[in-house]
């Protein structure tokens, strides 16, 4: 638990960090970014909260079974999208040309168009859930394991 200035600034900065992380995840197929990069930015907000508020207050809100549930669902989404195009090959991009994320840009410099790239934005979301929940679970478990005991060790 750090001083009052640090805690107030952490309270103000956390929504900005979370919004930026979500922007990097969702725009992975238009500009730089993607699942892994945005997931790391999103999990750094959890690190900020752990350092500013101490692990005793944070561990009541981030429970380990919920975090592992989110990680598992992210991995299942990623693998399920790989199996979805199994009629042709494994990992086939089957949404190109269809109404869901299906614009095909011509070769060369293009305008910003978020409805492109087929199955890639959905894979970005799956990988981002996996990375966010994984990194947060590692940090919370290590913070719990290095607490100081109070009752005479």
């Amino acid at each position: 638990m750090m001083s009052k200035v640090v805690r107030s600034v952490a309270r103000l900065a956390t929504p900005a960090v979370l919004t930026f992380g979500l922007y990097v995840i969702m725009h992975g197929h238009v500009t730089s970014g993607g699942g892994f990069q945005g997931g790391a930015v999103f999990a750094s907000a959890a690190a900020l909260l752990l350092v500013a508020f101490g692990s005793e207050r944070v561990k009541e809100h981030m429970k380990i079974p919920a975090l592992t549930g989110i990680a598992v669902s992210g991995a299942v989404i990623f693998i399920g999208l790989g199996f979805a195009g199994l009629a042709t090959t494994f990992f086939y991009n089957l949404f190109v040309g269809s109404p869901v994320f299906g614009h095909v840009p011509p070769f060369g410099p293009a305008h910003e168009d978020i409805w492109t790239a087929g199955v890639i934005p959905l894979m970005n979301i799956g990988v981002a859930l996996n990375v966010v929940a994984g990194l947060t679970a590692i940090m919370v478990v290590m913070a719990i394991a290095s607490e100081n005991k109070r009752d005479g060790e």
Partner: protein
Amino acid sequence: MSTIITNAPFIAVAALACVGIYIMLSQRNLIKIVMGITIFEAAVNLFLVSLGYRNDGIAPIFTNATGIHMVLPVPQAMTLTSIVIGVATTAMMLTLIVLIYRHTGETDAKKSRRVKG
């Protein structure tokens, strides 16, 4: 002499790798050894990225691009994978250090060698 100026990223990779190997060999605290391993992994990632540069190339993104002479995208994808695997390895090593400290009470690499029962 002009080879040194042209190949400057590769010389930086060699210097970082030497620093990493020196830390791994000469330190006795377990956490400092993990820091040396992390520095060595950073040198390897820098080498992978700097293999894919083309002279006067831009980023390989077609949105609002200014031309079509781009750097190679495949080494960047390989480096992404390598960074994530480095994070996983470092997390596992730090967990083992916490367990060694709980079991023997030491973080010195020489004194924590006997793990009894």
